[in-house]
């Protein structure tokens, strides 16, 4: 990766121009190589015309076709996307509503609710995964439901760990809201719902979208919690990759991984672009 500013100017760097010191640039460049090389290699070799993945034998898109035609892989991929979509909708709705409630009201036990909502974010993933396993086993949640209802347990678990992130993001956006706007709307005769729809919601929109995209990537990425929640017959993409990695590494998995990387990268860049105008508007 070549970054133009790494080329640098000819004049001597000032005392605080740390970025223009060669060793700082070296650290930065090494870090980027460290972070990107494995992913770049994976993507490159998804186009390699060879089953043995180390030697380059020419460009091909065969593995993408193979991945597309691999029923199990396709099913797992569809499941992952479906779960992510459903969990995102649920988490965004309930997470946003809670954020508004926390912003607007004082009530007894508020600190406990705030702490409780932070809990899914801080506890180790495996503890949550184990809790979901025990919970669904104990209440006897049916594991043999027809598709897509066999994804319900995973969706419920994903919603549980995604909505606190939505609440966090939306609430951060809410802090900058000027309540006199709301009062003005009410003085001018708008009801509770109309004020919400025409004043609060448009203001919150970037926060809600950012929260939703965050929830989507978190759900799509999740392995540990899904691993414990999914029944023997239900596979998501990460769970399938996990079972495949333990036996052999095939270029189809590289191809499917590349597709997933592209999807998440697009979603992330979209989320960041959506958040930036907000920061400018806040003067940050």
């Amino acid at each position: 990766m070549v970054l133009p500013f790494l080329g640098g100017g000819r004049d001597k760097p000032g005392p605080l121009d740390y970025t223009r010191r060669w060793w700082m640039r070296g650290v930065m460049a090494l870090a980027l190589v460290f972070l990107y090389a494995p992913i770049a290699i994976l993507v490159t070799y998804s186009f390699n015309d060879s089953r043995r993945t180390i030697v380059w034998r020419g460009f091909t898109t065969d593995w993408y076709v193979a991945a597309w035609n691999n029923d199990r892989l396709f099913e797992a991929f569809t499941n992952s996307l479906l779960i992510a979509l459903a969990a995102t909708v649920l988490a965004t709705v309930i997470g946003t509503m809670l954020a508004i409630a926390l912003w607007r009201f004082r009530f007894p036990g508020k600190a406990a609710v705030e702490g409780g909502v932070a809990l899914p974010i801080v506890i180790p993933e495996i503890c949550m995964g184990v809790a979901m396993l025990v919970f669904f086993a104990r209440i006897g949640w049916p594991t043999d439901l027809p598709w897509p209802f066999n994804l319900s347990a995973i969706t419920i678990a994903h919603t549980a760990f995604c909505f606190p992130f939505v609440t966090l993001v939306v609430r951060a956006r809410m802090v900058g809201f000027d309540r006199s706007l709301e009062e003005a709307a009410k003085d001018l005769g708008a009801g509770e719902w109309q004020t919400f729809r025409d004043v609060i919601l448009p203001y919150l929109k970037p926060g809600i979208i950012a929260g939703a995209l965050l929830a989507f990537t978190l759900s799509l990425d999740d392995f540990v919690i899904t691993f414990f929640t999914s029944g023997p017959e239900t596979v998501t993409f990460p769970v399938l990759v996990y079972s495949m990695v333990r036996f052999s590494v095939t270029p189809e998995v590289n191809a499917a991984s590349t597709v997933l990387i592209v999807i998440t990268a697009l979603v992330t860049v979209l989320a960041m672009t959506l958040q930036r105008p907000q920061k400018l508007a806040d003067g940050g």
Partner: protein
Amino acid sequence: MIHKTGTRLDSWKSNKILFAILSLPALFWLVVFFLIPLGFVWVLSFGEKQGIIDIDITGTFANYGRAIDSLYLSILWDSLGIAAATTLICLVVGFPIAMAINFAPARWKPVLLLLIILPFWTNLLIRTYALIAVLRSQGYINGFFEAIWQTVFDGLAALGIDPVPILGPWFEPFDLLYNQGAVIYGLVYVHLPFMVLPLYAALERLDRSYLEASLDLGAGQWRTLFAVTVPLAMPGILSGVIITFIPALGTFLTPNLLGGPDSQMIGNVIENQFKSANDWPFGAAMSFLLMYVTFGVLALRALLADRGARRSHGEAAG
């Protein structure tokens, strides 16, 4: 977190219906699908296994007793050590990265920041899987060294020197995978963005005139770094350490895929109890031990942050 609007909050009694509509769905989800499941695990940790699937809740502490038994205690210590090493490496590597981004030209900052964060959004499993391809004995690092070895081997042969006594008859690949080093490498790979972000945020808030003053008054770069920059960035360092240490400690996937027998962490023990070993009460106890350690670290952090805040207030007042 700052609550600017703290004085202007409505009482929930002013509009009970709206309050209920807004807060109850999320609270229901939190209680039913998070707190109650955790409660199940907690109760389970005081149970005893009676048969293959029968578990009696007898109120025993035997599971916890077993968990702090020598074997499992040493795994816990190993986990703490691996997580600590990961955090330290992330801090040492992350600090110059955060500095470089912070002092980069304004238009480059968001790009560099995005470049550091983006891998974090790539699926954890895919990244770990990509590392296997890099580290394994027919992987890219060994392939690179093998190519060098081959060149030297051929070079010596061309010079008429027998290379076999010096280099051996074939290339011996390095054991880079399935050991503790691989686990730490994988954890650093996954958690570096966690460390860089809070460090960057702290450095961004830092008033550069302090650094200029320090340099003007004759302190060198290193002295300025350790006497001015690091203390001022301490809240960010603390956040970065916590945010790296906690997930590294509770990790399961990285040691599972990259580790060997010497590098099992507490997460693997928990997984093993719930899957193949099928001893849920013991797994539940281990799981809660891990949570207690996590909460202990968070409490320590709150304590330190509180003391730091008080000290800086004291300085401002005095």
